[in-house]
């Protein structure tokens, strides 16, 4: 090229003008081919379901070939869209990486995921959002239907569960697939203590939490040497053991469960008898509302508030940092003088505490429990909340719980397709936003030299790279 003679530095030649359309065309062809392939493959897989139909009246097989083209076309389009979206995500990831490598990382040490949610970081906006959210949550029972309150109680119970499991999985990095077992222990503690000793909700709330914590410790001891996949399998087996014990042991009443679990009492006041007639005529309460449910709603709301405060404080403490270090690198964690055994045990036991609390509230909400409420599916649900919301992130877990509990309720209109859509949303989320709805961010320390007057200066190495 002519430029080369004038420039001393070798300049890479600009891409030829014709090259771009050719490669774009090639890429398009490749995409179409991939989409066609997956359409064919999907058709083959769906063949027995869609095309063959046993006609039980005539005892013959009907072949519905007419359905196949439509199915293939749908698969073709879906694949094309999917691949297009994936490509866009890949592109933006590369761009983000370039931004990161170029400039210094943005102040505040947030990860590469600081998208629209950065708004939450600005203190006034954050406070306004928090206040609005709190107001909304506090006012729900006074304008919503009993159905909404019931669903919200469930959502809040799952927020508590999610925040508890978040300590174990999100912060300490110990994969626990048997969290439902601790939930069950909380619920059964209340149910059994009430049925046998007549203890009430308020006495059982701490006892249920204590029982779950002790069980967490008990399980913690044998699995301390395990991590990763092995740990997950053991917790899974443990939860199954707990469930089988509940089914087979006599005093739990087996699969028939325990009935007539009472709601929490408020100083012995009959809420539905004395308070409700005051509120309903003034339009402050839905006529069909059970005030005991409203009280449970406020109790679980208070527990959630307490949990958030506790988890936040734990995360930003010596203990929380030890858990984070454990998650990041076990060997280095020990080399920092952290007792690995103790860190694992406390994370496991404390995570279980909240499952116990949630279990007591759960039992009092649905008044009837049996082992069927605490299956593997419950554990998976809570784990999904943590992963979908954002591992280690408190607001993430809260949003995750609300989405995962409310979504199936809103999808009821789609009846049969409900769980299908639910699953699809999960898959899409994990592919396009694997870090969760609100990814966890690290705490920023602000250092003001004027706060620390008289600091010795000059006795330091210059910054990295400052020297020639």
């Amino acid at each position, binding site marked *: 090229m002519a430029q080369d003679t004038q420039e001393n530095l070798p300049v890479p030649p600009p891409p030829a003008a014709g090259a771009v359309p050719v490669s774009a065309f090639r890429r398009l062809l490749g995409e179409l081919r991939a989409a066609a392939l997956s359409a064919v493959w999907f058709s083959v897989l769906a063949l027995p379901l869609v095309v063959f139909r046993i006609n039980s009246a005539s005892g013959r097989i009907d072949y519905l070939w007419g359905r196949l083209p439509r199915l293939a076309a749908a698969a073709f389009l879906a694949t094309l869209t999917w691949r297009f979206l994936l490509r866009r995500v890949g592109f933006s990831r590369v761009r983000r990486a370039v931004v990161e490598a170029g400039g210094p*990382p943005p102040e505040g040490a947030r990860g590469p995921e600081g998208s629209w949610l950065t708004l939450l970081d600005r203190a006034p906006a954050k406070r306004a959002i928090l206040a609005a959210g709190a107001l909304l949550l506090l006012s729900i029972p006074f304008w919503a239907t009993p159905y909404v309150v019931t669903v919200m109680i469930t959502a809040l119970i799952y927020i508590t569960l999610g925040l508890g499991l978040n300590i174990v999985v999100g912060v300490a990095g110990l994969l626990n697939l048997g969290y439902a077992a601790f939930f069950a222990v909380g619920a059964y503690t209340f149910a059994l203590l009430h049925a046998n000793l007549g203890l009430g909700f308020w006495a059982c709330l701490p006892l249920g939490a204590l029982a779950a914590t002790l069980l967490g410790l008990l399980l913690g001891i044998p699995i301390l040497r395990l991590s990763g996949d092995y740990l997950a399998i053991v917790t899974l087996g443990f939860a199954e053991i707990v469930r089988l014990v509940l089914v087979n042991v006599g005093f739990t009443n087996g699969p028939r469960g325990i009935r007539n679990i009472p709601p929490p009492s408020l100083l012995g006041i009959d809420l539905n008898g004395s308070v409700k007639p005051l509120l309903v005529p003034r339009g402050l309460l839905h006529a069909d509302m059970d005030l005991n449910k409203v009280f449970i709603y406020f109790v679980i709301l208070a527990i959630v508030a307490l949990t958030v405060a506790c988890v936040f*404080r734990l995360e930003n403490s010596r*203990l929380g940092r030890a858990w984070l270090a454990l998650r990041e690198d076990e060997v280095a964690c020990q080399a*920092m*003088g952290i007792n*690995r055994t103790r860190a694992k045990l406390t994370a496991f036991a404390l995570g279980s505490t909240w499952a116990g609390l949630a279990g007591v509230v759960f039992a009092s909400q649905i008044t009837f429990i049996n082992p069927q409420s605490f299956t593997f599916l419950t554990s998976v649900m809570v784990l999904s909340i943590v992963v979908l919301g954002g591992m280690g992130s408190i607001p993430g877990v809260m949003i995750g719980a609300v989405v995962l509990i409310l979504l199936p309720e809103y999808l009821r209109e789609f009846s049969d397709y409900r769980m299908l859509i639910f699953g699809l949303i999960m898959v899409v989320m994990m592919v396009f936003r694997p870090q969760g709805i609100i990814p966890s961010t690290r705490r920023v*320390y602000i250092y003001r030299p004027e706060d620390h007057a008289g600091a010795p200066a000059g*006795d330091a190495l210059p910054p*990295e790279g400052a020297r020639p």
Partner: protein
Amino acid sequence: MSGPAPGDPVLSTSGVTMIFGGLTALSDVNFRVERGSITALIGPNGAGKTTFFNCLTGIYRPSRGIMTFSPEPGRSIQLRKLAPDRITRLGVARTFQNIRLFNNLTVLENVLVGCHSRMKAGLLGALLRDRGTRDEERAMAEFSYRLLERYGLAASANHVAKNLPYGAQRRLEIVRALATRPALLLLDEPAAGLNIAETRELDELIRFVREREGLSILLIEHDMSLVMSVSDSVYVLDYGVLIASGPPAEIRRDPKVVKAYLGED
């Protein structure tokens, strides 16, 4: 062993042997680090250097042998049967051959984790966040920041560790180890992956650490120019056996060392 009269070793081992199945990784290693010295342990790949570090820091338990650590003159502790975290709390800190930072924590938090054993706050302190806990947190955050300042990393205190450039990550690992307030600092190939300019900076850094923090340093290193320039005495390990020890100038001329490194002529 020949050499200067025994002074006041911060670490001395005798007969340390490590056997993995049929493989003898370390055989009868007698070793000492004089207080306040920079001692280097060199040897070809697979000679057992990192195994020796892992024995010292409790990751492995040696099959035989005594390892005596003396955090201050007149006090000596047997390291052999202690857990890694206990050894760190006693005053032996280390870095790793392949950097093992807490990648998703900030630079400052990495150092704060290093302060763990010097803090007292437990579960109750964390939950109640009483005055004592708050003061302790603030004091440790300030200490960590100061430490970062001293080693030129304060500007990136709030950055996530994995986003640091490679050289700064190596340096942060040393700072994190210093946060445990060690009497003996073990550096496992600190110059690995550094360029010539960075290695020269590291040379300066190691001396600075010794002077400023008043500790003894034991380092494993492949970079001969660094070892020869920085260390007071050198030990050479080959196939798990110590084949030579002495001041760097002597080691450089030792025919056994030349043979182990370069092979026979």
